[in-house]
């Protein structure tokens, strides 16, 4: 009986040890990390742009239904990992339907372990949201807006960008 008890305790310790090693050594799989996504309206958007804390802001508007946005997203993730948080802030704003948050947006973000803040636009009128960012923008996405450290918009463009293009645009802003 003592032998059986000793064997069981030994096995239990081995299982606990193995589990502990796994949790320490494994890179967290994207699927297991639930990203935080916050709703944002026009007022929140204005506040986000205004509260710069000395940082340059790159704001990317995207959606899971938009193929060029999906194509661009890995480069945005790479940018956020490499650009340096002390000087730059990267923010993604999804214009997916709020109803698609759990079904589409979060599963999409889980593929990447996204290292920047992501919001989902809580839109009254699409035009108000669009015009808050730039009155010359007609809503085509992906769209990228860059603000300097005072919150002034320095550039706005639509279409897929590469990592190098993101870097070039950000570095041109002082």
């Amino acid at each position, binding site marked *: 009986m003592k032998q059986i008890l000793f064997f069981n305790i030994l096995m239990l310790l081995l299982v606990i040890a193995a589990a502990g090693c796994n949790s320490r050594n494994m890179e967290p799989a994207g699927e297991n990390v639930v990203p935080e996504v916050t709703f944002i309206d026009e007022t929140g958007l204005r506040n986000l742009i205004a509260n710069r804390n000395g940082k340059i802001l790159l704001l990317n508007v995207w959606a899971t239904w938009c193929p060029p946005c999906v194509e661009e997203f890995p480069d945005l993730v790479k940018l956020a990992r490499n650009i340096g948080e002390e000087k730059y802030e990267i923010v993604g704003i999804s214009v997916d339907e709020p109803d698609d948050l759990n079904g589409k947006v979060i599963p999409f973000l889980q593929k990447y372990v996204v290292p920047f803040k992501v919001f989902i636009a809580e839109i009254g009128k699409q035009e108000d949201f669009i015009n808050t960012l730039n009155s010359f923008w*007609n809503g085509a996405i992906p769209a990228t807006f860059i603000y300097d450290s005072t919150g002034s918009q320095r550039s706005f*463009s639509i279409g897929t960008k590469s990592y190098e293009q993101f870097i070039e645009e950000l570095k041109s802003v002082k």
Partner: protein
Amino acid sequence: MKKLTALLIIGMMTFTNTHSTEIKKKVDNFTLEDYNGIKHSLTDYKSSKAVVIIFIATQCPISNAYNERMVELNKDYASKGVVFIGINSNKQESVEEVKEHAKKNGFLFTVLKDYRNVIADKFKASVTPEVYVLNNALEVLYHGRIDDSKNKDKVASNDLRTALDAILTGKPVGTNETKAFGCTIKRVD
């Protein structure tokens, strides 16, 4: 990309202005082939009450969300003298794909292939779906979205229908510029 940014900012202003009771933007005539290789020019439709140009895509889910609505619009307004024309300017969508897409979705209106996005550049069109309603003088009477929601059940403002109804009754179009989220037209480099 810098060129595109500049286009966006300057583009809104580069249509020729004509002076009538109000200043309207005007587009130039163009000729494009449909997916069967037949040529179409805007001037072919001078006798129509209005020409609705819609920049569309085969792969953009937002544009595709409007396929059924475009079919319905054409059905409702063709008999009233309105001509609908779809234009596909996306570089990655072939003429064969455009043809297949039109057949599959029951498009009874003409769909033109705009190779190298020449006409999209002339119109300064940047998104799908994007609508231009023209009169027979090729003046832009309405520019923007079909309606205000990709989800048909959530539509609150049928902007294109409202514009067409105004045009057909000889009234000025109240809101002649609208915006909505959509896919960027993928242009040649």
